[in-house]
Each structure stands twice: as C-alpha cells, then as structure tokens.
C-alpha cells in the first residue's frame, strides 16, 4: 500500500512538473529552432493571452511520424521544409489555409511558391523564410575569385581546407549545379554524375560538419571554406570576424525555404491561423528573420520596414533580386529518389 501510494505520488509530481503551465489557452507548435526565440513568440503570447508550446525537430520524417501518431488536437501549427509540404499534405497532416487572408501579395514573388504550398488549388502552407545554401569562406585565406566557380572551390588548391555542411539535399543540389544539372532535374539517371562530384568534394574535405562544428572550424581557421554554408552560417560570426563571408558562384546556388501551416484537427484552428498570420506579418517576419538561432530572409518584403540598415546589410537585402534570379530551389525528390540520394550521400561520406 505504502509503496503504491508513494509511486503514485511520485508519478503525480512528475506529471505536475510537466503540466505546470496548463492554465492558459495553449498553442502547440512543431517548429525549427528559429521559432524558439522569445523575442518572436512573446509578443504573440501577450497579444492573445495564450501560451505557445514549442518543440523543435530534426528531419521531416521524424516530424511527420510524430504528427501521424499523435491524437487529433495534439498539435496546432507546423513549420516544415518547403519541399516537404506535399509529404505532409499527402499524409493528411495539414489543414487548408484561407489564401486570401495571407499577405502573399507583399512577398518576394519567387518565394510565394504556389507549386509547393498549394496542391490541387488548395493552399496548405505559406512560405515564411528563405535563404541560400552556397559557399561560405574566409576571405583572408582564399582568393575570392576562386569562390565564383564551384569547380575551383573543391579543387586541389584548397585540399583539406574545406568542410561540407552535413545535409545531403543542399550539398547534392550544389553538386548537380556544378555539373550543369538543374536541381529539379536530379533523377536516378544522373546520380552517378553527382556521386563523382561528391567523391571529389569529400576527398578535398577535412570534415562533414553540423552548424556548430562548421562555425568552429571556420572561426578557428580549421577550414577556410564551408560548402553548403550561407548567411545562416556566417551571420553570427561576421560581427567579430568580418573576413568570414559568403557568395553565390556563377553556376548558382541552392535556395532553401521553410513553410508554415495549420495542423489538421487542431483543437484551436482560429488561434492557429492567427499565429500563422502573425508570423507572416511584417513585424513577425522581421523578428523571424533575425531570430537568435539563425538569420534568413523574410518571405514578406514588407518586413524591410521593420529591419535596421545594419540588419539589412547582413541579410544582403539589396542583392536579393539578383540572388533570387540566380538560385534554384532545393532538390525535392520523391520517396524512392530520396532514399537513393541519402544512400549515395552516406556511401560517399562513409568511405
């Protein structure tokens, strides 16, 4: 009896620790780390007198598995890689959004991306942020001219001075661009060519690194180049080490986007929609663009009014028309190609 009560008591304590904030209206959001910034979330919480519960995740698969196995109403909003919106829609995870209530008219036209966010005429998600996976480098140690051509980036000259960003889609996109293959044209037929480029890349690289390892390597001079880097990688370092910069080479680079949507079966769909509207509003967009986890361009161009000149300079606001014209969207493979690409990536890494 005693031990039963004590066990029960202990479990109760655990539960109450977990549910300490269960008083207010709740919004449960499955997000990327840039949404975890209180500067972004607190204004929304105050305006609507709600608590936003945030959970970040790694990898679309993990997020979709989590959502599919949750009870309806467990989740309200989802941040997802633009190229994976269709996966979430196929799985019945996203609810339709009222397209006419979204300020997409103010967006940079290239990132409205109806082809990604709208399926069969129904809008399920809205682009909220974008940026580039390209070449970050230390301008004190490499010749900036060499960084304008992908083939010279991973040439003999920089052997052992390179780190590869640890995510297969953007890096394989860059490999494709260097071969003159558009990212949308990657298929099982040209994977061999990509494999060849990646083998070269890997043979020149000192490491294949996540965000912190890549930043540490750049900041300490371990490497001079990060393939797959961009503003999101070097923006934090630039203040102290202005020689760390990034460029988009002549072949172009890969553009990443993240989308936001309301989860089907949300217990609080109105509030969820309000959240989406807040994030794509000019104020929300400015805060998201300069969020503490990583910086990136806001999809809504009207956010420019809420950004300082310094912030715009770091984001390279004025170069966006040129960059948008020269970059291509992430590869968006179907499931079979995705497996093949990931296997190829792991094979060329783990050699």
């Amino acid at each position, binding site marked *: 009896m005693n031990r039963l009560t004590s066990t029960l008591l202990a479990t109760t304590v655990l539960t109450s620790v977990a549910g300490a904030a269960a008083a207010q209206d709740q919004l449960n959001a499955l997000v990327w780390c840039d949404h975890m910034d209180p500067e972004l979330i607190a204004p929304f919480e105050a305006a609507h007198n709600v608590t936003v519960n945030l959970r970040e995740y790694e*990898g679309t698969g993990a997020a*979709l598995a989590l959502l599919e196995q949750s009870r309806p109403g467990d989740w309200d909003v989802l941040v997802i890689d633009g190229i994976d919106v269709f996966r979430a829609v196929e799985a019945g995870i996203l609810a339709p959004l009222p397209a006419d209530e979204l300020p997409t008219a103010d967006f940079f036209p290239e990132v409205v991306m109806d082809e990604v966010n709208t399926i069969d005429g129904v809008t399920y998600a809205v682009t909220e942020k974008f940026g580039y996976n390209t070449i970050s480098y230390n301008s004190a140690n490499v010749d900036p001219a060499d960084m304008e051509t992908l083939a010279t980036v991973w040439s003999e000259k920089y052997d052992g001075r390179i780190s590869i960003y640890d995510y297969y889609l953007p890096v394989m996109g860059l490999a494709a661009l260097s071969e003159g293959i558009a990212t949308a044209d990657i298929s099982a037929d040209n994977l061999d060519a990509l494999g060849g480029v990646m083998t070269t890349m890997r043979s020149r690289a000192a490491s294949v690194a996540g965000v912190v390892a890549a930043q540490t390597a750049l900041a300490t001079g371990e490497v001079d180049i990060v393939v797959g880097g961009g503003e999101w990688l070097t923006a934090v370092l630039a203040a102290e080490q202005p020689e760390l910069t990034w460029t988009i080479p002549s072949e172009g680079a890969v553009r990443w986007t993240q989308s936001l949507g309301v989860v089907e079966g949300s217990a609080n769909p109105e509030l969820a929609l309000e959240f989406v509207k807040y994030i794509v509003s000019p104020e929300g967009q400015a805060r998201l663009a300069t969020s503490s986890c990583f910086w990136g361009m806001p999809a809504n161009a009207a956010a420019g009014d809420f950004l300082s000149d310094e912030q715009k300079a770091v984001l390279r606001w004025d170069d966006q028309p040129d960059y948008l014209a020269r970059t291509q969207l992430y590869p968006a493979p179907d499931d079979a190609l995705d497996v093949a690409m990931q*296997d190829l990536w792991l094979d060329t890494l783990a050699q």
Partner: protein
Amino acid sequence: MIATGQRAKGWGFVAPALIWTLAFFIVPFIVMGAMSLATLDGRNLIWGVSFDNYASLAERRFLWRAIVVSLEITVTVTVVSVLLAYPLAWIIAFNVPARWQRLALLLAILPFWTSYVVRSYAWLLVLAREGVVNQTLMTIGLIAEPLTLANTRFATVTGFVHFFVMLLTLTIYANLVQLSPNYRRAAQDLGANAFQTFRHVILPLTLPGIVTGAFLTFVLCIGDYVTPQILGGNTELTVPQVIMVQLGRRADFPLAAALAIVLMGIVTLAYLAAARWLRLDRL
C-alpha cells in the same frame, strides 16, 4: 503453508521492479524486434516478417561500414582506456600517501560531473586548429604547423577515452585497494620480482574488476551518439549516428530497429566473451 505464504510475500517485494522492467524494457525490446522485421512502403509501416532490413546491411555499403567503424572505435577506446587507467589507479592506490588517496581519486574523477554533451563540445575547442593543444605543441616547438585534430576519429577516441579513464580509474582503484598487501609480500618472499608479482598475482586478482569496467566501457561506447556526432566530423559514421539519421529524415523505424538489434547482438557477443570474469551483480 508458511513457506508458500512467505514465498508470495517475497514475490510481492520483487514484483514492482520486475513489472517495471518487463513493461518498459522487455516489452519494448520485443516490439523493437518485431519492428525490425517490418518494412516501410513509402511512409507507411507494414508489419510482417521480412528480413529485408537485415539483408540491406549487406547491400547498403554504409550500413556495413558503420558497424566496422563502431567496432574499431569501441575496441580502440576500451583498450586505450584500460591501459591508461590502470597505471593511474595503481599510482593512486600505491604511490600516493594513504591520507591523500581520497582526495587524489576525487580530483581524478571530478570532471566526470561536467555535462556529457558539453564535455564533447569542450574537446572540440581544445582540439581546434587554434586550440590549446596545437598552441602548446607549437610553442614548445614540437610542430611547425597546427595539426588537424578536431573532426577526426582521433577526436572521437580522445573524447571517449577521457570519459572512460575516469570511470575505469574508479573501478580499478576499488579493486586494487581491496587486495591484501600480504599477497604481494608473499609473492616477493617466494622470490618473485616486481613484474612476476604483477603478472601472476595482482593481475589475475584484479582481472574481474578490469573486465567488468571494460565491458561497461564497451557497452556505453558502442551505443553512444553524442561524442562521435560532435567530435567525429561525420567523415565516417557510427551505428548510433546511422540510427539517428534513419529516424530523422525518413522515420525509418524498421531499419533503425534492425540496427539496434545488431548493436545488441554485438554487445551480447562481447558479454559472452567476457562472461567468465564479469561480476555485474556485484559492481
């Protein structure tokens, strides 16, 4: 009658722990075994009995490679850790004056209480190109150019060895101080030299402690995700890293489960190899 009553009471005491272990360890383990025989069609899980996941170990080169890498790293770490920890435990037990021993031991294992995740990150800073190690080596003139230490297998092994040297020093020390000094004296009286005493008396007596510590090192090392992920530079992947990759992008639970079962199999083999000396229930 009394005996059965007593027995029922005895089971009553054991039952809560047993039920917990069954419900939250054995059952998940069985479900994981079943999961490893399921397959993934697109993103749909299909339960069944298929050995595709195990067959893919042979077909998909990186899976096989991950097992080899994991084994190489784990064996290196276990051997190096024991070789470094034994002398340290020995010196603390026999060279350090008795009244300072507790302090020396405490100091030797104090960094054990830094956060595990942060400790790996700290090694990244230490081993960086402009980190302490390179700067020191260059100052004393041993090297002219900084060495690439971070983001390599060397870094992973160093991070692991650091952690396990502390663990093993503790277990081996505990073993050494339990030895009666009479053994050494007796051996010396019988004409054994220092090496012979060690080889034929001390080592066999401390072997169970060493093997138990080494086995724990092996288990913890081969299943660890954090250290290779932070320090290894991802130029080669270990099994836990591959498991996490499968979970992240594609939520391939069947393949992840199959890899976990393989990992278990390796640990079981290690257990059988070490079973003669293992004293797990008498830690």
